[in-house]
């Protein structure tokens, strides 16, 4: 195997491990229950996931992921965390029953789906991947075949903006 074949595989394992590790720390950080820590690890999860997108040749989506999620969504989260007074969170205990039930149900779902993945092998007989998710290819598709959903999404963003302004008014009717 040439080094140029091995490098993407090494990078995949690196980014996948980073994504999962930071995902664990978002959900269940043993050192801190502070939502700010969770938000920071969410940023790291999203950035390493953008690395996975680059490995899948989805360059445009990797950029959008970093700009929209790491740039806008997390900043919004941090603003709201600082608006609310969340010092109380650290004092409360996690309920043992809820945690146990969650672990069992998620464990069952994960076992079933991973077993199904192993049994069906969806990627076994596929041809070599060739597509490139660059800006030009995606933009062409977005403005020809998917132009109607694109316009609908712009209206959705307008509606969301108006809704948020209405919801953040002091006297909510």
């Amino acid at each position, binding site marked *: 195997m040439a080094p140029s074949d091995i490098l*993407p595989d090494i990078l*995949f*394992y690196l980014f996948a491990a980073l*994504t999962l590790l930071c995902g664990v720390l*978002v*959900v*269940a950080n043993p050192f801190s229950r502070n*939502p700010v820590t*969770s*938000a920071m690890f*969410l940023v790291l999860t999203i950035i390493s*996931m953008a690395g*996975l*997108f680059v490995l*899948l*040749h*989805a360059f*445009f*989506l990797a950029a*959008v992921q970093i700009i*929209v999620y790491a740039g*806008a*969504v997390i900043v*919004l*989260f941090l603003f*709201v965390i600082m*608006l*609310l007074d*969340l010092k*109380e*969170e650290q004092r*409360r205990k*996690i309920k043992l029953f809820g*945690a146990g*039930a969650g*672990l069992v149900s*998620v464990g069952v779902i*994960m076992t079933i789906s*991973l077993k199904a*993945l*192993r049994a069906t092998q969806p*990627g076994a007989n*596929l041809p070599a*991947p060739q*597509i490139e*998710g660059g800006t030009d*290819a*995606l933009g062409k*598709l*977005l403005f020809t075949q*998917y132009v109607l959903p694109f316009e609908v*999404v712009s209206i*959705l963003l307008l*509606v*969301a*903006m108006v809704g*948020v302004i209405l*919801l*953040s008014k002091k006297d*909510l009717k």
Partner: protein
Amino acid sequence: MHVGLEHYLTVSFLLFGLGLLGVIMRRNLLVIYMSLELMLNAANLALVSFSRFNNNLNGQILVFFIITVAAAEVAVGLALIVALYRKRQSAHVEDLTSMKL
């Protein structure tokens, strides 16, 4: 072994499970919301890898729309959480058990 579709799908499944675990286990509304984002991202990863290995760009277009809608959804959801916090002085699901304010 060469990294293929199964590897990416495994990562996506595990990330989805983590998000689900956060939604079930955590009691803070904001952390639950972040776990929801994690689940959305897991779905995005699955879609992008399917798109790549099936030589079809439509999956990436869908991910583009999911990211847009998720951004709008986060803005509205966080505004709701702030409005709720103003009424109840709490962002804890155990304090928010009744529908009527």
